[in-house]
C-alpha cells in the first residue's frame, strides 16, 4: 500500500505546526490517535529483553537504545565500512516518511529477519519499517492537543523499545506505549499538565522494568522533574523535582524550570541516572531568582531505584544566557586518567558553554574541563537589562556551544565527538508579562545581532573531537552556512566518525584525524537527525540511516521528510 493511503501518515501530514508569539502550536492533529497497519506479519515476534538492551552496544546488528548503548556512545561494532572503503559507500534507497516536520530523531533497530526499524519524527509520528526495503509496516500518529505550546519546534528525538512494546514521549508531556508488532496503543501516561507549559520531545529510556522520562518547558515558568513509570502499565514508580527546595529563595522555586529535556544516561552497574539539565527560570532576569540556581545548567545524578538526588555539577551558575547543558551524558567506564594516576568511571558531556566536562561518576567532581570547542567571546558578561538601548553580543550564543546534539565516543581513539554552534546572539533583560503556560523568557533574545564580537571567525558551527582525559581539542572541522548545525554523531570500531550537516552533506571523517574521507550530497535541505548503523546478516550488508530535514526554532532551513539509508556489502 502506498503511504499516501496511510491514515496515520495522513493525520500527521494534516497536522500543522505554527509559530506564534508564544512559541510553536500544534494545530489540526487528529482528535484520537491513529494507527494504520500494513504488512505487520513481517515483524518477528519476540521480546526485546533487558539482556538485549544491555548488549546493544556490542551487538553489530542492533541499535536498541537511543545512544546505541546505555552509556550513550553511539559507537557501532559493525565493521564492514572502513576508512579504506568508505569512499565506496552508496545510497541504498531513500524514502519519504510522509510528514515533513521536525526530523531530529534516532531510529532504533531491532535485529531479526528482517530487522525492524522504529522511526519517529514530529509531530509525534512513529513507524515500524522493514529497513531492507524501506517498507512501512505500521504507522501511528498521536493525538496532540491543540493547546500544547512548544518553545522550539515539534520535535520527537526517538523511541525506546522493551519486550513487546515501543515507547514514545508525547508533546503534551506524556509517554505512549504501543504494541511493537501492531502499532496499537497499550497505555498512555501524562507526566505533567501541558496547559502549564510542560512538554516532552526526547527519547525515553527503559531499564529494569521502568520508563525514565523528564520534563520540558524551561521557557514557560515550569518546575522540572524526572520520573520513572512502570514499563508494563505506565503507573508512576517515583517522581523527583530536579531543583531542591533548600537551594532556592522562597517561592522562586515554583518557576525554577531546571528541566531535563533530553534523555537520561543509564548506569546499570551503579544503579544511577545522569541527567542533562536545562536553564533556570526566567531565562534572563536573574534578580528574581538569586543564588546559583541549582540544579540548572549541569549534570544531575539520581538514584535509579528511588529518584533520590545524589550529586549535581553546575556549568553555568546563576545562568542568564540560556546555557542549558542538554546533550546526553557519555559514560566511560574505567577511564585511565594518567596525570592523576586514577582509573575512574567518567561522565562526559559538553554544554552550551562550549567546554567538554569530564566528571567522576561517583561524586560529580570535575576531572578535566576541555579547551573550548568553539569561540568564547564576551562570555560570562552580565547581560544588559531594563533599558533596551544597550545590546551586547556574546558567544557562545543561547544556542551554544553544544545544545541537544548527541555526541559520540569511540573507545579506540579515546575521543568524544561533538557538534557545536559558533554564532553570537544578544540578550537583554526586561519585564515581560507572565501568564501560566505562556512563554517566560524574562527578557529578549536576538539572533540577528546589531554587531558581532571582535575576533569572531564567521564559522557558524563545527564538528569537534576532544580527548576527555586531557581536555585536548584534537581536531575540528569548521562548518559555514546561514543555517544552524543540528543532529548527532556516529562513530565506528573501524575508525570512522559520521555526521550530517546543515548544508545537506553527509560526511565520513577519519575518527583519528578529522580528515573528510567520504561526502554525500543529500540535496539542499539540512540534516538534523542522528546517524545510526547496523549489520544485517540476512543481506550481508552494513547499513547507515539518517533522517533529513530542517528542524529547530531558529535558522533551521528547509523542511524535508526523507529517511536516507546507505549500505555496503560485506
Amino acid at each position, binding site marked *: 500500500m502506498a503511504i499516501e493511503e496511510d491514515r496515520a501518515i495522513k493525520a500527521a501530514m494534516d497536522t500543522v505546526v505554527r509559530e506564534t508569539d508564544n512559541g510553536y502550536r500544534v494545530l489540526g492533529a487528529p482528535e484520537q490517535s491513529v494507527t494504520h497497519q500494513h504488512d505487520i506479519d513481517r515483524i518477528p515476534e519476540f521480546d526485546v529483553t533487558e539482556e538485549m538492551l544491555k548488549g546493544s552496544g556490542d551487538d553489530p546488528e542492533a541499535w536498541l537504545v537511543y545512544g546505541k548503548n546505555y552509556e550513550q556512545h553511539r559507537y557501532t561494532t559493525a565493521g564492514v565500512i572502513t576508512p579504506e572503503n568508505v569512499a565506496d559507500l552508496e545510497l541504498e534507497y531513500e524514502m519519504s516518511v510522509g510528514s515533513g516536520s521536525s526530523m531530529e530523531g534516532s531510529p532504533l533497530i531491532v535485529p531479526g529477519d528482517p530487522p525492524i526499524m522504529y522511526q519517529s519524527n514530529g509531530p509525534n509520528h512513529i513507524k515500524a519499517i522493514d529497513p531492507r526495503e524501506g517498507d512501512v509496516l505500521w504507522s501511528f500518529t498521536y493525538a496532540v492537543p491543540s493547546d500544547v505550546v512548544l518553545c522550539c519546534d515539534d520535535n520527537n528525538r526517538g523511541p525506546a523499545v522493551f519486550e513487546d512494546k515501543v515507547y514514545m514521549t508525547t508533546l503534551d508531556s506524556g509517554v505512549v506505549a504501543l504494541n511493537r508488532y501492531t502499532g496499537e496503543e497499550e497505555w498512555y501516561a501524562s507526566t505533567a499538565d501541558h496547559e502549564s507549559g510542560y512538554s516532552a520531545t526526547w527519547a525515553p529510556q527503559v531499564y529494569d522494568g521502568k520508563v525514565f522520562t523528564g520534563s520540558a518547558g524551561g521557557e514557560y515558568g515550569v518546575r522540572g522533574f524526572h520520573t520513572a513509570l512502570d514499563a508494563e502499565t505506565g503507573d508512576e514508580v517515583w517522581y523527583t523535582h530536579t531543583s531542591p527546595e533548600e*537551594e532556592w529563595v522562597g517561592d522562586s522555586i*515554583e518557576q525554577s524550570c531546571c528541566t531535563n529535556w533530553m534523555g537520561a544516561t543509564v548506569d546499570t552497574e551503579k544503579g544511577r541516572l545522569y541527567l542533562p539539565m536545562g536553564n533556570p527560570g526566567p531565562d534572563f532576569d536573574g534578580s528574581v531568582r*538569586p543564588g*546559583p540556581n541549582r540544579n540548572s545548567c549541569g549534570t544531575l545524578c539520581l538514584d535509579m531505584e528511588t529518584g533520590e538526588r545524589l550529586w549535581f555539577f553546575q556549568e553555568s551558575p546563576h545562568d542568564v544566557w540560556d546555557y542549558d547543558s542538554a546533550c546526553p551524558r557519555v559514560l566511560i567506564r574505567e577511564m585511565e586518567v594518567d596525570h592523576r594516576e586514577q582509573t575512574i568511571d567518567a561522565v562526559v558531556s559538553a554544554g552550551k558553554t562550549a567546554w567538554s566536562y569530564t566528571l567522576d561518576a561517583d561524586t560529580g567532581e570535575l576531572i*578535566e574541563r576541555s579547551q573550548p570547542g568553539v569561540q568564547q567571546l564576551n562570555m560570562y558578561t552580565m547581560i544588559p537589562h531594563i533599558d533596551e538601548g544597550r545590546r551586547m553580543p556574546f558567544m557562545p550564543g543561547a544556542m551554544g556551544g553544544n545544545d541537544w546534539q548527541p555526541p559520540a565516543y569511540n573507545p579506540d581513539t579515546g575521543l568524544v565527538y561533538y557538534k557545536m554552534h559558533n554564532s553570537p546572539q544578544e540578550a537583554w533583560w526586561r*519585564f515581560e*508579562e*507572565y501568564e501560566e503556560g505562556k512563554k517566560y523568557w524574562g527578557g529578549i533574545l536576538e539572533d540577528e545581532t546589531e554587531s558581532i564580537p571582535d575576533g569572531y571567525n564567521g564559522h557558524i558551527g563545527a564538528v569537534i573531537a576532544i580527548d576527555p582525559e*586531557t581536555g585536548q581539542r584534537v581536531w575540528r572541522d569548521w562548518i559555514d552556512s546561514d543555517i544552524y548545525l543540528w543532529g548527532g554523531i556516529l562513530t565506528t570500531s573501524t575508525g570512522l566518525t559520521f555526521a550530517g550537516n546543515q548544508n545537506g552533506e553527509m560526511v565520513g571523517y577519519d575518527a583519528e584525524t578529522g580528515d573528510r574521507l567520504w561526502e554525500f550530497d543529500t540535496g539542499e535541505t539540512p540534516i538534523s537527525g542522528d546517524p545510526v548503523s547496523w549489520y544485517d546478516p540476512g543481506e550481508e550488508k552494513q547499513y547507515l540511516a539518517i533522517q533529513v530535514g530542517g528542524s529547530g526554532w531558529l535558522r533551521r532551513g528547509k523542511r524535508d521528510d526523507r529517511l536516507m539509508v546507505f549500505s555496503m556489502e560485506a
Partner: protein
Amino acid sequence: MTILAVSDGYQSTHTREHMSAPQITTEDREGLTRTLGVGESDVGERPTLSQLRGTIDAEADDSFASMGEAIRAELSGRLDASLLAERREELAAQIERLPEVRNVGIPAGESEPDRLYREVIEPGWDVYHHLADVGFFESVEEALPRFTPDHIETTAHELIRAEPLSGTLSGMGFDEHEQMVLVMNVVNNNTRLARWVPTKDIPSGVGFDVDHVPPLPQRAMGGTLLWVNALDVHLWQSRVLVTEKILDDAFWDTKAMLGGLSMMTEAAHDVAAGESLTDAQLTAALSASAAIMIVNQEEICKDAFWITEEMRAPSKAR
C-alpha cells in the same frame, strides 16, 4: 581539615593582604565625592567613614525617618530580640573565623565536601528563617522605595552618619578600609542596584507570577546565603579550575556579603529592641545592607563561579 594545594603558583600561606578588601580606585573616589556632594580634598587616598562623617550634611532626611518609623510600627512585637542578638554574636564569631576558612581554601572530603563555608553561615540561616517567618522581608520591602540615585544618595549619607552601624561593622571585624569599601558598594552601584526591583514595583500587569517572586530584602539575604552555601561543593568539585586569586576574591566577597547580612540583622534587632538607631538610620541600614548583599553576590558570581578560560588554573593534563 586539610589544606589542598591549588595550582597557579601562589604560596600556600596567605598574607593578610591577599585577604583584604579590594583597593579603592580613583574612579571609586570620584563616584563617592559626586554622590555625597563633597570636595575631592575631603576624600584622601584612603577615605574612611569617620573622615567623611565630618564633611557631610548632618541634617537627617524626613522621608527616611518616616519610613523607619513605619517599619518599626509594622514589625513591633513580631521579632525575637534575643534570638537576633545571639545569632548576631555567632555571626561575628564566624566572620572572625573567615581567614582560617580562607587558609583551608577548598574543603576536604573523599566523596563529598566537608562543611567549611556552610558552617560559616549557620547563624545566618537562623536569622533568615526567623525574618521570613515573621514577615520581616515583606514589611521592609513595602516600606522602602526601589533603588534610585536619590535613594542611594540619602542612604549613603545616613549610613555614614550612623556611628552605631560603623560600630557594628567594627565589632564584626571590618576595619576602616573594609567599611569604606562596603559603603562604596552602595554609593557606586546605581545602575546595578536599579536592576534589582522590589517585587511590589514590578510593573503592574507585566510582572512575573509575583506570588513566586520573594520580596527584595529576602532575595538579597537568601541569595547571600545560597552563594556561600554553594561554595563548598563548587570549590570541591571544580578544584582543577580554582586558583588562589579565586579563593582570595571569594573570601572578600563572602565577608562583604556577611557584613551586609550582619547589618540587616542589626537593623532587625534594633527594631526588636528599639535602642541605638534613629528611624532614618534604620531605613539606611536596611537599604544599605540589602545593597551590600546584592552587589557582592554579583561579585562572587563573577569572581568565583563564572570561571573563564583566562581565570582558570592551568590544566595539569595538557
